[in-house]
C-alpha cells in the first residue's frame, strides 16, 4: 500500500547557504519526493550585453570578467577571439601559449571550487573545501603574480595578453605542477574513500545522454553522461591542437560522475600546462600592435571555447563603429540550468541541493 500525501510548495532561496549565488527554487513536493521544480533567477542581472553596446571594444573586456567571476580568464577568451576574427588581428604564438596556461590554471581553480563546495553541500562542512583551497590559494597567488588581481584578472587583450609572465612565475608554476598530483591523490582519498560521499552521490540525479543532448547541456554535465565532446579537442581553438590530453567521460550521468569528470579534468589541465610550458616559445612578444581606437568592419561572428562550465560562446555583430552592435554570450551554466528539472523530478528533497550543486553554476553567468 502506498501512502499519498497532499502536494505542497517549498521555497528555497534566494538567500540560502548552499545556493551558489542568489538563486531561488520553488519545489512542489509529495512528501519527500520532488514533483516539480521551477528555477527563478535574475537577481544578479546587470545587463552586461546591453552595457557592452555602450562601451568601446576594449572597454568590453573587463565586462566579460564579471560574467563568470570564478573563471574570469576563460570568459575573456570567446569575446577576444570574436573581435580578433572580425578585425583580422593575429596573435603571437607565445601569447597563445600564455593564454592556454592561464586558462588551464583557471580551470583547475574553478573545478576546485566546484568539488569543494559540492562536499560542503553534502555536510562535510569546510573540511575538504579548506584542504582544496590550500592549493587554490597557491594558484591564485600565481595568477596574481602575473595580472596583479586575485579574481577579475582582465588578462586578455586583442592580439595577445595584457602582461608578460614575470621571471619568477614559470619556475614557481613548474614547482606547483610537480606537487599538485600528490595533492590530487589526497583529494581522491578524501572523496572516493568517503562512505558518505559515495552513498549520497552514486545513482543520484541521473541523467541520460539523449536528455543531455536534447537539453543542450555542455561541459562536465554533458560529459558525465557519456557524450564525448570537448571543444578543446573536437574543434580546437588557439593552440589546443598541439597538446596531448584525454577527455574524461562518465558513464551514468549521476552526481558522482560529474564530480569525477571535474577531478579528472584537473589532472588533464596539469598535463596541458606541463606541455605548454615546454613548448612556449621564448622572447618577449606577448601582444601584437592594435590601434587604440579600434574600428571593426561590418560583419558578425560566433566563437566558442570550452570553459570550466561548458561551451561558452560569444556572438558579436559589428556595424563598423568602435562599439559592438550586438554582443551575446552563450552562457553554459544558464543552459545547463534547464536540465535541473529533468535531474530533480523524482528525487528526494534532501538530494536536491547536491544535484543543484553538481551543475556548478555561477549566477553571474546565468543572469548576465
Amino acid at each position, binding site marked *: 500500500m502506498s501512502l499519498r500525501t497532499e502536494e505542497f510548495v517549498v521555497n528555497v532561496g534566494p538567500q540560502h547557504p548552499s545556493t551558489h549565488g542568489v538563486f531561488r527554487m520553488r519545489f512542489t513536493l509529495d512528501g519527500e519526493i520532488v514533483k516539480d521544480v521551477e528555477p527563478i533567477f535574475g537577481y544578479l542581472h546587470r545587463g552586461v550585453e546591453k552595457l557592452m553596446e555602450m562601451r568601446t571594444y576594449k572597454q568590453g573586456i573587463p565586462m566579460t570578467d564579471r560574467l563568470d567571476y570564478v573563471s574570469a580568464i576563460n570568459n575573456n577568451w570567446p569575446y577576444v577571439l570574436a573581435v580578433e576574427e572580425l578585425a583580422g588581428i593575429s596573435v603571437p604564438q607565445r601569447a597563445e601559449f600564455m593564454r592556454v596556461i592561464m586558462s588551464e590554471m583557471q580551470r583547475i581553480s574553478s573545478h576546485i571550487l566546484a568539488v569543494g563546495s559540492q562536499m560542503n553541500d553534502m555536510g562535510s562542512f569546510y573540511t575538504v573545501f579548506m584542504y582544496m583551497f590550500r592549493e587554490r590559494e597557491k594558484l591564485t597567488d600565481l595568477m596574481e603574480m602575473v595580472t596583479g588581481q586575485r579574481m577579475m584578472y582582465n588578462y586578455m587583450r586583442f592580439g595577445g595578453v595584457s602582461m608578460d609572465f614575470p621571471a619568477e612565475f614559470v619556475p614557481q608554476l613548474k614547482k606547483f605542477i610537480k606537487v599538485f598530483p600528490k595533492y590530487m591523490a589526497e583529494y581522491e582519498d578524501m572523496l572516493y574513500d568517503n562512505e558518505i560521499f559515495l552513498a549520497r552521490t552514486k545513482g543520484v540525479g541521473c541523467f541520460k545522454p539523449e536528455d543531455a543532448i536534447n537539453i543542450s547541456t555542455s561541459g562536465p554535465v554533458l560529459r558525465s553522461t557519456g557524450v564525448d565532446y570537448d571543444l578543446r579537442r573536437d574543434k580546437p581553438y588557439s593552440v589546443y591542437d598541439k597538446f596531448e590530453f584525454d577527455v574524461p567521460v562518465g558513464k551514468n550521468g549521476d552526481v558522482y560522475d560529474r564530480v569525477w569528470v571535474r577531478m579528472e579534468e584537473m589532472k588533464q589541465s596539469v598535463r596541458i600546462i606541463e606541455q605548454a610550458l615546454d613548448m612556449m616559445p621564448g622572447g618577449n612578444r606577448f601582444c601584437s600592435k592594435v590601434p587604440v581606437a579600434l574600428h571593426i568592419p561590418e560583419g558578425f561572428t560566433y566563437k566558442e571555447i570550452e570553459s570550466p562550465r561548458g561551451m561558452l560562446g560569444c556572438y558579436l555583430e559589428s556595424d563598423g563603429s568602435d562599439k559592438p552592435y550586438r554582443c551575446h554570450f*552563450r552562457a553554459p551554466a*544558464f543552459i545547463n540550468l*534547464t536540465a535541473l528539472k529533468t535531474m530533480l523530478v523524482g528525487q528526494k528533497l534532501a538530494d536536491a541541493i547536491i544535484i543543484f550543486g553538481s551543475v556548478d553554476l555561477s549566477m553571474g553567468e546565468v543572469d548576465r
Partner: protein
Amino acid sequence: MTKKIYEELQENCECARICGDYAEIVPDSLPDCALFLKDNGYDYLDMITASDHIDEFILTYTFKNLKDKDDVMLRASVSRENPEIPSLSNIWIGADFQERELYDLMGIIFTGHNNLKRIVLWDGFEGHPQRKDYKNVA
C-alpha cells in the same frame, strides 16, 4: 562537409538560401529546417540569439553535430511590427530558457512556447531593454 549539409537543406526545404557560411531561412520554415537538421545528425541545438536591426530582428540559430564535429548556422529575419517565430522548445528542451531570455530582453514572440514569460527581469518590467530604441536611464 558543412557545404553539403547546406545544399541538402536547400533541396529539402525550398525556403532555405545559402549565404556563405550560413543559411538564410523563412521564419515559418524554422521547425521543418530544424527537424531536417536533427534527422541528419545535427541534433544539438547550440545557441539562439537575436539582434535588432531597427526595421527587423535577425535571429541566429547554431546547431552542432557532436559525432562529426560540425556546425550549422541558420538565420531568419522577422519584422519589427510582428516579431513572431515558431518555438523550438517542443523539439529541444534546451531552447526553453534561451527563448524566454530573448522574449524578455528583445521582445520576440516564440509561438508554441508553453511558458513564455520573463526570465531575468521581473514580471512588471516595461519594455525590452535589448532593443535599440529602449530608453536608457543611466
